[in-house]
């Protein structure tokens, strides 16, 4: 087949409360392995909504989503959870780290859930990911002892633990200052260019978007522009 990692086919989404509105209109696009793509658009245009659908967390839509060539429509909740666990890594605006666990354990959790590697191996891998992100010295702290930028890097390490097909981010730099945003961007770029990691990142930061490989621009629930950036 081809190496399409993610494919969105005629995806539409309606909200019925308080009034019927269509927030996504026939979204069609696909991502190939190693692409570093940003999604931009005005606030309220449906970027987050699209991302939740593509990430299988939202199943209330029409059309279809293929991940690694497999249709997500009609899959059971437990199967979707498995796909999220093994094939998708998430980074949100908020870090969502569990304060009950150490930084290292937070990164390990999705790996332990998969159970593909022994606990020792998962721990080793988690440590390696923290190293890539330059925060291996914080491994045994609790998340609430870290700075905002560090927390976000832990969240990225957690997204990476199962070597996902794709990393999705919803404004991962939205809460960060210029310097930390820059660090996070460099990490994404390194992942894309050195590790051939596929990334789909929603952002408000046009400067950020300009430096990715491809920009998808949305307006009122539709893709109005989809362009590759020439280097």
């Amino acid at each position: 087949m081809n190496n399409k990692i993610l494919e969105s086919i005629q995806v539409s989404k309606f909200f019925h409360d308080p009034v019927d509105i269509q927030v996504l209109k026939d979204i069609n696009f696909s991502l190939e392995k190693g692409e570093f793509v940003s999604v931009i658009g005005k606030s309220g245009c449906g970027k987050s909504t699209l991302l939740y659908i593509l990430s299988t967390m939202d199943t209330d839509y029409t059309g279809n989503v293929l991940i690694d060539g497999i249709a997500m429509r009609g899959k059971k909740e437990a199967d979707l959870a498995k796909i999220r666990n093994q094939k998708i890594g998430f980074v949100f605006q908020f870090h969502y780290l569990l304060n009950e666990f150490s930084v290292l354990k937070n990164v390990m959790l999705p790996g332990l859930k998969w159970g593909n590697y022994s606990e020792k191996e998962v721990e080793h891998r988690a440590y390696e990911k923290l190293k890539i992100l330059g925060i291996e010295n914080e491994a045994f702290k609790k998340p609430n002892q870290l700075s905002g930028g560090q927390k976000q890097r832990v969240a990225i390490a957690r997204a990476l633990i199962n070597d996902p097909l794709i990393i999705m981010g919803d404004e991962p730099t939205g809460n960060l200052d210029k310097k930390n945003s820059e660090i996070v961007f460099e990490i994404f770029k390194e992942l894309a260019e050195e590790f051939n990691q596929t990334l789909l990142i929603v952002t408000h930061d046009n400067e950020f978007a300009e430096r990715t490989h491809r920009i998808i621009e949305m307006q009122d629930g539709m893709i109005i522009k989809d362009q590759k950036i020439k280097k």
Partner: protein
Amino acid sequence: MNFKLIIDVSVSLLLARWKQTLVAAIGVTFSITMFIALLGFMSGLNDLLDGLVVNRTPHVRLYNEIEPTKDQPISLSRKYSKDYNFISSVKPKNERLEIYNNGAIMNALKKDDRVLGFAPKITAQVFYNVGAIDLTGVINGVDVEAENKLFFFKDYVTTGNYIDLKNIPNSIILGKGAAQKMMANLGDVIQVTTTKGERMQLKVVGYFESGLQDIDKVQSYASIGTAQKLLGESNSYITDIQIKLKDILMAPSVAKEYAHLFDLEAVDIQTANSQFETGSSVRTLISYAVGITLLIVAGFGIYNILNMMIYEKMDSIAILKATGFSGADVNRIFITIALTIGVFGGLLGLIFGFGLSALIDQIPFNTAALPTIKTYPINYNPKFYMIGSIFSIVTTYLAGYFPSRKASKIDPVIIIRGK
């Protein structure tokens, strides 16, 4: 499934809220403690009261009742068989209370392997002569050894030695109440008169306390031989055969069978003492009701803490789901939390319950009615501990069920969007 991970996450959530968890667990501990102590105490008391009756009462008693013949001659006559016959003022004929041919009956009982043992007995109506007045009384002529073996005679002889009754001729063990009335001391000789006017001198060798004062005022014990002599009867004369069975529950059917077989009256313990059964079962019911109520209250405590925990941990649940934990996993996590509270709380409850029971068991409890009892009675039946642990697990599971389901249904999109 990845059981270790589920436990790991559960325990971390638990420890993060350890104070509330502790309170919830203490609730369970408290209720199980009370449940165990209450049931142990109540059924100890039940056993004690039942023992008063069961220890002293034959499972089946065979005796002869003096009553009018059931079949009057006229109803046997064929000539009048189609008529209604009214006979008024029927009287019993002159019969004796003796059980005839009792040697053969006792041989048959010896061979019956449902029978644990039996003790023959004579009841004799007498008057105790005290100076110028006579007190009515009953002397039970008993086979001292059989009586002791089957009905713990020794326990109720509070002063004197029970076996003297057999060894010393013409001896009597007086009911405590009767002795007090007669001011008879150990070693004194008292005089009794039978209903037929015979007089006899008997030596007091002990006092007897049954725990029921009305009985102690009237009843006394003598050996069978003494009683036969007193009544002027031959040495085969007995009026009752008291039978203990291996299985008390068989008493009604065995009684019916013997009544038919030996052509005697036979009464079983259940019929004779039905009111005790009722009392016991009501007390047991109340104990269970109180214990279970306590547990349900503890269950609400767990329900609350879990709901609170879920509310606080919305974010954590959302990210667990986003990173690949299924609804079932989240459900398991919270059920594990509930069960952990239940198991630890319950286990402690069992231990404390045992401790409290042991404590109650040490409290002195002296009553004139119960000479053999020195402390409050406790029943350490493992059944209560079983029921307690099963209930603690079931209630905590139920208390965890709805919050856990709620947690498993949390939609991560809603939580994440809310930030």
